[in-house]
């Protein structure tokens, strides 16, 4: 009898101890925020253009976490949809054309002599990439511009252009070879034939 009681007592004691440890761990190592939203947000292009119908990328990330379709972000395009599909383990669908189409990367450029300094574009820019002051000429910091288009519409004198970022020698990248049965002129070690001829 005593052994039974002892056993029960020990077990109770143990469960209490482990319970306390687990409880403490839960509090101590509590994860803040919503990790899935963060993960989704990390995949979105952060252009903050609102084409998805949300006021920025994070709200769309939240919406996706709540079940919205993953194909509403034109700047991200197919690659973002693919990444989201991988993350959420759903099927990758084509981009929803209602929200816009994927286009080449662009930056806003202000035709500076036409700017009347109304500051509207500053207010519209989601990433503070426009510099200027009231009644002064404004300019876009090209490096910070996400190409979201949001400053174009408010400009009362239509002096903002969206200019495609051309490829420079620094940003250029190699094309993918065309694949089987294609002849690549840039094949390396093309002197192999010479060796055969030897």
């Amino acid at each position: 009898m005593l052994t039974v009681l002892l056993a029960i007592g020990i077990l109770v004691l143990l469960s209490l101890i482990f319970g306390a440890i687990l409880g403490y761990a839960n509090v101590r190592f509590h994860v803040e925020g919503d990790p899935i939203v963060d993960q989704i947000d990390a995949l979105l292009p952060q252009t903050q253009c609102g084409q998805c119908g949300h006021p920025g990328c994070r709200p769309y990330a939240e919406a996706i976490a709540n079940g919205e379709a993953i194909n509403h972000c034109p700047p991200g395009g197919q690659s973002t949809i693919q990444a989201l599909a991988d993350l959420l383990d759903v099927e990758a669908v084509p981009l929803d054309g209602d929200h816009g189409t994927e286009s080449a990367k662009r930056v806003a450029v202000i035709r500076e002599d036409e700017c009347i300094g109304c500051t509207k574009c500053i207010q519209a820019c989601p990433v503070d990439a426009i510099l200027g002051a009231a009644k002064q000429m404004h300019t876009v910091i090209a490096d910070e511009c996400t190409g979201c288009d949001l400053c174009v519409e408010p400009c009362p004198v239509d002096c903002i252009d969206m200019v495609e970022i051309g490829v420079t020698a620094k940003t250029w990248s190699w094309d993918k070879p065309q694949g089987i049965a294609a002849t690549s002129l840039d094949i390396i070690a093309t002197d192999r034939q010479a060796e055969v001829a030897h």
Partner: protein
Amino acid sequence: MRTEKPQTAKVFSFHGGIHPPENKAQSLQLPLGKPSLPSELILPLGQHIGQSSRPLVKVGDKVLKGETIAINNGFLSSFLHAPTSGTITAIEERLIAHPSGLSDLCIVLTPDGNETWTDLEPLNNWQDISKTDVLAYLSEMGIVGMGGAGFPTQVKLQGAHKNPLTHFIINAAECEPYITADDMLIREKTLELVAGIEILQHLVEAENVIIGIEDNKPTAIAALKTVLTQRNSDIQLAVVPTKYPSGGEKQLIQLLTGKEVPSGQYPADIGVLCQNVGTCVAIHDAITQGKPLISRFTTLTGDALKSPQNVEVLFGTPVAHLLEYADYESKKLSRLIMGGPMMGYTLDSAAVPIVKTSNCILAASKKELPAPAPEQACIRCGMCEQACPASLLPQQLLWFSKSQEFEKAEHHNLFDCIECGACSYVCPSSIPLVQYYRHSKSSIREAREANVKADLAKQRFEARKARQDAEAAEKEAKRLARQKATTNKATDAKKAAPAKATPTAAAAPATNDESKKLKVDIAIGKSKLKKLQKQLLEAQENEHVEEISNLQLQVTDQEKAIAALEEQLAKTPSAAPAAPAANTEKATPAPVSDELKKAKVDVALIGVKLKKLQKQLVETPDDQELKDKIAAFEADLKAAQDIVSKLSSNAQSSTNATAAEPKAVMSDELKKLKIDAAIAKAAVKKVEKALKKAEEIKAPEADAIRQQLKEAQQRADELEKALANPETAAPKAAPEKAAPTAENTDAEAAKKRKIDLAIAKAGIKKAEKNIQLLKDQGKEESEIEASEWPKKLIEAQQKLAALEAEEGAPAPVEKTAEPVANSEAKAEPEMDLATQIKKEKVAVALAKAQINKLNKRLESTPEEAESIKQEIAATEQRLQSAEALLEKLIHSQTNMQENR
């Protein structure tokens, strides 16, 4: 063997490698050549890894040979020097030697043929001064790694100090077929090379200094041995067997030290430093002769050249010039390659210049470099794996690259691939493996950069949001404070205004009994309130705290009572609405100043009360009643402030009492603005309601609505401001002295109107978007109706129409104001003219832009063609008149200037 000759080092081996035909003999038949000066030298600003240099010269500048023409731009960057004396003829985009075939910014130098050197200042005391200074000097001499990608040497040397150096390796292997430039350099400049190595050894203080050279360069090896023995140097010479790619940095390190550089690390991490022979010679020339890096040894070879040879060539020399020098046969030339056949790239144009890293120009004939066979499927033969000097699994990498599984490719150490081409060389399926790797690498790099940019954008976006929230909170707090003040004022003002307004209003139209009674009640209540307020004022002046709070309570009660009465009054059908009352006030200017005083007192009082309530609110933040009260007060306060501003403007106009018409114009405009303000306020209320509802049911749209609320409030605020402005503006315009300010305020009003317009448009867009969204979400029509968006849309459209109609109006106002300014404000006529011209220009630009926009709209929405056309016509008229005015103004300006 090692023991006999202490200067020969032990040689290990590395995995893989291939033995392609060497083809080195061709270019060694002739001695070192010296091509003539070309007609122009093209010097790209980005000849090295890192930031492009910044040009120091302007077009037209005369430079001497060796003069600095561009300086470094940041840490990882380099200097650039004039290779000969001459004139800078352009700084522009030119084709550069790059696999992309793109252009980049270049300094173009036209030689004068004199080769006049600038003053050379050798660093003779390099042994005595600090090493940092020597490194800085090397940087200023434009020295970069001449073997590989052009890594700035001083940066590499600095990095070498991370760990104590066990080995300092000089790379003379030159393993790639065809290239003999280093071989020739060693033969020609043996002494300089050894002296350069000694300088470097002084700088890095390595335990072992080893020259690694392939055994296919017997002449160079012999020359080196002679010099080393002569100088009794402890530099070791390691002759490695010929195998491609023994000249790869990591491979040579493995050959000479037996140590492998771990994946993702640099040689410096394991205590090894590698330098190319060309770099060593350049360092020697820079330090002992003060000569900056302006030329290099380059191999010109290939079947298409009749006299293949090595040349010492100035940077910037166009490849075409060198081809001519080496007698190329254009018929034979099938591919022009910069670099060797394994790691080089095809040039699209011979106009590109030689840069610091160009070691070879290969003008290959068709027979020499035939078109590669078409790619076939990988047969998993494993030959590429055997050949890979980096011990990678090329077929695995190919698989991942083809399927764009970049993450997996990275896990298989894609970035350890040195792009040597050994795998492509052995692949029986002729797969351009390196192409695939290069593509994958650049895709990964691009994605990384995009990620960095996205992070930055996110940071900035979040920072902006935080700032905006803080601003909004501050504004909200201020608004609350103001509202508190206004409520008090408003109630007072209400008492005050109707007290005076009603008699006149009541006199004219027949009011029914009920409203009369109510009015009487109100009047009584107000007089009581007035008394109380007077007491309160006194108390405030004497700072009797208890009394104040007491009295304030009473005042509030009284106010409530009056408010209730007034509400009732408003409900009675024939009650005089506020606007007519205001009009009548204007009509009878006499009592204005009295009223004004009172209204002002009221505003002050309400402010005090509001503050108190807010204090209470802070203490008991959950008290809903209190909040409601505050809100009520705020509304009242606004109303009171309105009245004050109205009254004050009236007072001004009546004291100035000169022009009757401005008032008329004003009242018209005023009315419109008031309507706008009222609409805006209504919108605010509606949105607030929606917000409450949304919050109740925890709808996800709550956030969006809240934002809208903010916007709506902003709109309302702005309209109110506008309401206050034209009133003050118009009366000021009448008296002569105030003309310039009138202009300003006019401009401001116009601006505000524009802002309103844009906001209204945005409102429409948003409403439309939201409706669309609801539809997209599959909501029923009725639900959409319930969401109030359609209503909002209609409202916004109306407002837009009103605003657009109004926008036509300001032009004449401005015009009337300007002539006044012209004829009478002669204080600074020219300045005024200038500003006016500017303003008119803006107006013209605006009108033009609007026409553009309208035209666009016309195209997209033909249904609305009629109204749009009308708008266009109106805008065009405006444009014309603005242009006419502008012309006049400019004319008068020129006249004035001529008169002087």
